């Protein structure tokens, strides 16, 4: 059960991408690998869906991109977190934590506590 990958929750992909690039500039494929790595392969991401999200985040100014060279000496587009992105990630993390806490509280509520 714990090993079976779960689909990314609606709306959380953006957060994951921000987190991934906050650890250092990455190209699109790198973002995918990084998420797999830090989630220990427990999250399933449709590969194609990554790019519209990247473009959306760049358009909103949370991340910025520039062309560089990959580890295989190939031309690749690298994304890094902007200052605005950093603030966004922070607020999103706080929001997520609060939300998770509330939901967890609700779900763990026993009969006698009502």
């Amino acid at each position: 059960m714990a090993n079976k990958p779960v689909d990314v929750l609606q709306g959380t992909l953006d957060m994951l991408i921000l987190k991934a690039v906050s650890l250092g500039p990455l190209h699109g494929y790198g973002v995918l690998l990084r998420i797999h790595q830090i989630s220990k392969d427990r999250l399933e991401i449709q590969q194609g869906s990554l790019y519209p999200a990247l473009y959306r985040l760049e358009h909103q100014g949370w991340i910025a991109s520039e062309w560089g060279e990959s580890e295989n000496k190939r031309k690749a587009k690298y994304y890094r977190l902007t200052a605005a992105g950093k603030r966004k990630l922070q607020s999103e993390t706080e929001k997520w934590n609060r939300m998770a806490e509330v939901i967890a509280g609700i779900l763990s509520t026993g009969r006698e506590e009502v």
Partner: protein
Amino acid sequence: MTSWSRIRSWAHAIIRRSAMEREMDTELQFHMEAYALDLERSGVPREEAMRRSRLEFGGVERTKEECRDARGVSFMETFVLDLKYGARTLRKSPGFTIIAALTLALGIGANTAIFSLVDGILLRPLPYASPQQLVSVKGTYPKGGFVAMREQMHTMDVAAYSEDHEFNLTGYGEAVRLPGTLVSAELFSMLGAQPELGRTFYPGEDVAGQDNFVVLSHALWEQRFAGDPAIIGRVIELEGVGRQVVGVMPADFRFPSARGALWLPLHNDPRNTTAYWAGDFMPVICRLHAGTKLEQARAEIKMFQSRVTKMFPWPMPAKWNADVSVVPLRDGMVADVRGRLLMLLGAVVLVLLIACANVANLTLSRAATREKEIAIRSALGAGRGRIATQLLTESVLLAGFGGLLGLVFAKGGLSLLKATLPTDMPRLMDVHLDWRVLVFTGALAILTGFIFGLVPALQSSRVTTAESLKSGGRGAAVSVSQRLRSTLVVVEVAFAVMLVLSAGLLIRSFWAISHTNPGFKSEHLLTARITPNESFCQDAARCLTFYRSVVNEAQASPGVAGAALVNTLPLGGRITKRNVDIEEHVAAPGENAPLFWLDVVTPNYFRVMGICALAGREFNDADEAGSAVAVVTASTARRYWPGENAVGKHMRLLKEKDWRTVVGVIPDVRAFDMQSSEPEWIEGTAYVPYNSSATLEDGRVPAEMTIAARTNLDAAQAESTLRRVVSGLNPEVPVSEMKTMREVVSEAVATPASTTSLFATFASLALVLGMIGIYGVLTFLVSKRTREIGIRVALGARREDVLWLVMREGAKFSFAGIALGLAGAMAVMRLLASELYGVSPMDAATYCSVTGAMAAVTLLACYVPTRRAMRVDPLTALRED
């Protein structure tokens, strides 16, 4: 920060669109290759690694589309893309594009031209200051009534004018007759009209004795006075009376019509009771005081009306101006032409609707054949909205072309229109294409694009991908759009039927008018007005001698077979009214004597005009010397002496001492217009010989006469002959309105002629468009059913069966359309009644022949597609796709 990045991203996307597309490709390509490389490292063979990489990535095109959307530039980018794509598609099918654009251009062009007319005449505010405060009074008043109104009204300022006066200008080149308007002193200031030079009239300058002033039009000032500013203050001679020029109006000032060359003050003289209370009955215009409602003004004028009838020196009939009211000035000025213009607008809107239906049909047919293309695009990830938007863009692009081309047509059409329409149409001079009409055309083009683009776009985007790809373009949508197409064609034919019917009725009516016997022979007749000053004929003997010489010298000129004089030429637009006493019908005291149309003529008038007496005789030279005689028309004789011989009866002009003997009866002459001899308020027509007892209401002999000369000379020669004769006798007498009698007649029917030709044009447009419509739908139908027809032929269907198969479809559209059109026509055709003469709006013959003609024409449109169907070769048809 974020909005800046957004703008930069947009700008980036628009400016560097192709570069970004390339980058996007590189990026996605990199991703897939990197993944494949990783797979290879874990031992998957290269080929398999590439395949799995592509598979797991998902739809590349869909991803790209989503990326473009994510960048937030889709609207601008899509639009540019769609425009380019649309232009390419349109270029690829030039036949469709040309027919559709031309169809639209004709519809839009005709509409813009007519709308310019409606806008310039009915809608645009009058070119005077604060025109919304200007009103006109329904009803006319003599000077006395007007002056009283001006003094008593509290809700508005009051001014009056009297149109259609003419003045001889002498002393500046050849003597010339000028149209002028008498105005009350405050008229100019009420309109807010500023002179170009000098001043307008001061209050009080319309009182007799203080009124020797004149204001000139810009055109007259330029032509006669060489635009000399020193004209102000100079005295010019009008009708033999010196008047000081006080001002010149600017070129764009027109009141009440474009004809006027002069404005003179009214000559208000209360001591001359007859002229003051019975002379000219004039239109009155007013300016509402600020804050006054139309209703208040109406109430006040009603009160005034009850007072003013008691101010007359004689009892006034109770019904005189009983329905007095005030209406906005513009409505009052254009009331006569409003109905006709709206009718034209209605007709031309029908043409546009037909054009729209046609283009919608073409687009629908094309959309059906494009089903496959659309299915492929939707399989590649284009959303339904996206496809509809693209198709819509294409339609709007097409309509844009049509609109531009239509504007060119409109420009040509409008100048043609202005040349066709009668020149006396109010405000016609103000009509031109301008930005309002441009906006209208633009809106029309876009709206049209939406109307004919929306239906096919929605229709096409509903196509289900799999079905369409499978069926190779014979999908389910075909039957749906087929119904729509059939409906469009039926409606189109119905509209065309209505237009052709109205044109048919108008043509019949016009034929009736122009084939009416006017009662005179108009061939080889040249006419001209000879107009000495009023004062010249105060001395009746001098006047009669002058005219006698004119006739004698004209008749003596080479090439002139006969010449005669008349005070009011038939169809010449002027009436001389005169009350008469008729023996055995003498009016009781307090009753009005019958009002007649009085024609004063020289003895040979009837001979020159080709009018023969029905009974009795025409005038002779002895009558000219002073016999007390008269000639009446047949209808007048019937009216007063029914069943009796009018010859030998007696009548006399009012206040005449001796009775005149009726010596002859002539047939009725179409003198008022081609439909009637007299206006309905005239109770008879009498002719009297031109001698010293032939007096008008003012007791003088007529001074203005029209000469009619029967001649074989060409117009130019005859004209110079007449001018030479008159100027030789008296150089101060102008000769004007030189026209052949044929021109007089055709001017009299100018209005029905223009209406008829416009409707005929619209109807032929509608007919051609309707034919294209049926042809298009049937052609499409045949091409869609080629396979079916092939199977039928293979199974033994004969050519006649195929003929029936197709013709039946065509006949269905045609007859449904005709039936609908006839029903529609019956509902609206009475709107046309006022324009018709000698034919009922329900005229059975016209309805039958139009039905027959429409059936023939629509079936003719079926011919080509039917022939194509009959030639279907079963082998080829079955092998298709």
